[in-house]
């Protein structure tokens, strides 16, 4: 836990200062998770705002301060899922999101070694996103939470409120699909 239970209780009781402290403690981690889940840097803050907005208005439903983190992750997963579904509906393509000016600026600002490193990272990101496109949004998020965010099955059980065996089966199937795509890619 990044914060004291007392702070959560204060925020639950309507202390805006305590809520502010909570957001400041978790925003970096949550924005990082969102960035990895949705893969669009330009939309990360919007989704992050949605997460904390939902947190603010649902905090009174939190049963105990001990389950705060799974609760926050659940809100994050739901907001990312909603975002991905909206994106799918709009049929947007990753590259078309970048304006011509943004592409030119990225090209101009990059140089030498730094550019090579950024290229490598971009390739990895694109590779992972193309592999994860082979599974549904739900499975994509579940797989990410397990494989990239490093959450345990116990933690995922708390977030998804589904039993461990069902999660294992779902994860196995999703991973098999990604693995197949990965093999054919190699």
């Amino acid at each position: 836990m990044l914060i004291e239970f007392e702070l959560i209780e204060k925020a639950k009781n309507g202390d805006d200062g305590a809520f502010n402290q909570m957001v400041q403690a978790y925003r970096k981690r949550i924005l990082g998770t969102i960035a990895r889940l949705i893969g669009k840097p330009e939309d990360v803050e919007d989704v992050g705002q949605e997460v904390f907005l939902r947190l603010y208005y649902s905090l009174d439903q939190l049963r105990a301060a001990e389950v705060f983190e799974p609760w926050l992750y659940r809100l994050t997963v739901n907001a990312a899922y909603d975002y991905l579904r909206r994106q799918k509906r709009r049929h947007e393509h990753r590259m078309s999101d970048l304006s011509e000016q943004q592409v030119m600026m990225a090209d101009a600002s990059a140089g030498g070694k730094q550019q090579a490193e950024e290229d490598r990272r971009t390739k990895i990101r694109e590779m992972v996103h193309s592999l994860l496109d082979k599974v549904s949004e739900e499975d994509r998020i579940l797989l990410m939470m397990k494989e990239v965010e490093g959450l345990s099955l116990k933690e995922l059980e708390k977030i998804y409120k589904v039993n461990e065996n069902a999660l294992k089966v779902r994860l196995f199937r999703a991973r098999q699909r990604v693995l197949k795509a990965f093999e054919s890619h190699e």
Partner: protein
Amino acid sequence: MERMDQGSTNDKLDALFAQYREACPDREASAGFMPHLWEQIETRRSAVSSSWFRLWAQVWLVATVTLAIVIGGILIPRLENPPAYQASYVDVLTAADSANDAVVLPSGGNE
């Protein structure tokens, strides 16, 4: 052999996920993150309170209209239709009382 191949692909996929984690590190929020968040909270808060106000106003309006209909339905017909008896209860009592007096008084006058 196939199992070994799949094992190595599994390892490669794990490595790819680890590299992805590294390629997308946790990120700092922009300076406008907190102010914008509070702005959104306030906007929703005022929207919620105004919708509560609207709901209360609607409840009171419905209650007032219902009351007006009930009053109109019960009282107006009573006012419009005069009662079957023209004389009041007091008039009837007075009349009955004066009739009794007429019987009693003459006997006192003869003594």
